[in-house]
């Protein structure tokens, strides 16, 4: 079987490698953009514990299960966990970051329109993982 011409396979492999390079480059570029945290982003401390989310704003306001933010501002979440791994997720805004005890993970977003969105836990964390949910309430800008 050796010795037969194999150029279609080489062309095919070349196409596959080119496609994968394109995928990698595009993904790299988008990730670079979305990871870029604006300097004026307000910090919100997010704490996950079995089985609810609590939030602390920069001005010291605390919320449990609900998070109020304003449209048109950038927010940087600092994500903590008190017990086991959780994953902080606002699916509508593609915000996802694990809450790992002993670590602080950050992710940022800038809501653009007023509205209500679901917050959920996406990492298995035990008995009531399925109901570790919260609400993100985006309000009209106050000023």
């Amino acid at each position: 079987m050796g010795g037969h011409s194999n150029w279609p396979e080489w062309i095919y492999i070349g196409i596959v490698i080119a496609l994968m390079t394109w995928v990698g480059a595009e993904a790299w570029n988008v990730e670079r953009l979305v990871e870029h945290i604006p300097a004026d982003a307000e910090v919100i401390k997010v704490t996950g514990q079995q089985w609810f989310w609590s939030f602390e704003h920069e001005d010291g306001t605390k919320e449990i299960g609900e998070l109020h933010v304003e449209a048109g501002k950038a927010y940087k979440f600092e994500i903590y966990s008190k017990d086991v791994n959780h994953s902080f997720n606002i699916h509508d805004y593609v915000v996802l970051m694990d809450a790992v005890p002993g670590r602080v993970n950050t992710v940022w977003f800038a809501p653009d329109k007023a509205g209500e969105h679901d917050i959920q836990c996406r990492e298995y964390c035990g008995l009531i993982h399925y109901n570790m949910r919260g609400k993100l309430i985006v309000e009209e800008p106050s000023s």
Partner: protein
Amino acid sequence: MVLELQKPRPIWQIMFSTHHTDVGLLYLIMSLGFLFLGGALALAIRAELFLPGAQFIGDAMTFNRMFTVHGTTLIFLFLLPFASAVGNYFVPIMVRYKDMAYPKLNAIAFWMIPPAGALIWLGFADFTWYATPPYSIISAPGPAADMWIFGLKILGISSILGAINFIVTILKCKHPDMSIGQVPLLAWSFLSSSLIVLVAIPTFAAALLMLLTDRLGVSGFFNPAMGGDPIAYAHLFWFTFHPEVYVLVIPAIGMMYEIIPRFSRKPIFSYNSGVFAFVLLSVVSFSSWAHHMYATGMSFTEKTVFMVGTLAAVPASAMHVFNFIATMWNGRIKFATPMMWAVGGIALFFSAGAGGVVNSAMPLDFSTHDTYWVVGHFHLFVMGTIAFGSIGYLYYMFPYVTGRMYNEKLGVIHFILSFIGTILVFFTQHILGLYGMPRRIFDYPPIPEWIAMNQIATVGAMIIGVSMAIFLANIIYSSGKGKIANTDDPFGLGGKYYYPFEQKNPHH
């Protein structure tokens, strides 16, 4: 080849035998048993998710235990032992040796699995097959969790023993007339996957011990309260279990390499590229483990490195697909049941791979990670590719093992139903993931899209369930009462091509 069921022997003769076909038969029967047990759990899970709210299973704890045992069973007690069954039957014959290199070790490796399976099933742990610390350390109820850890420990040792046996059999016991470049691709697939096992498993074995001592409270490797790092466990776990994916998929591809040329009535398009792709896959399988951990707070550089490492596995997989297509090209293909399963497996292999590319592309992972997309993606691999290849091979080896033919019509129905079911369940789960449904949840809010998708998936799962019941009836009935197979050419392909029970292999 021994035709076990044509020459009845007392069961204990098979059970205490160390002959490779006997051990293979034991592996085969046990793995199929666990396939049906694990599958039953899957049906229960799907039934529960048919509607929001608790209907069928009743409480979240039971549900969590069920999906944990479902995953553990089908990966470690069905797919791996099934591959070992095929390897035990065929590797010694393919390298023309009388048995495995270490027959007793072989039997020991098999007999470690039933107690491990018993530990997993009697314990019924709830911390997912990933056993994430710190949940598995501080929160998971014992003794289930400890039993799971011991079970996996035993399974790990069994895999390592099996891997050593395969490597020695292929490299050292092959017939002196045969060079390594003449060993059939199925044996090459076992060589590559065994090498991966040997490199990958010890890492997880160590992590399991650390997890156990953490649970006992004497150490704090992964317990943040004692200064440990849960992410360290994630690295150790995925360093073993990303390559483990290839341990599962490589033998399945090797099985397709047996089936497809046979039924296309053509030799493999390129033996060399098959070998090259196997070796390449087993090397690059170690370059991608942390793509499971993008969301744990990895740096941009780390993510980039592991994305590139993941994408690097694509060309090697694509080479196999090319090889299959080029082998079928200009052939005269007989679509008997094994061929249908193999071709169906290749067709789904592409979708599974494409989903994997999306997962590994960094920003997209944040919309798909830990959602049903991931569930759909890896099930498309383990069910759509690996189990399809394996079941195809089971039909292919059925006449050799039993001396009888399975019922062809039922085999075809089994394939068609399974193919439709697989597409319904796992393609739908991809979409469900895009709607944001997290995995491993017992209940979900009544969002109309989620309900619709879950119901389609459940219907698909039931179709697979029906097809598997047909399969079970077919193999049980046919192995006792089926038509006697023409062992010279059970599939009516013509030609004196290689059949495993022949002494002489015209390939060599």
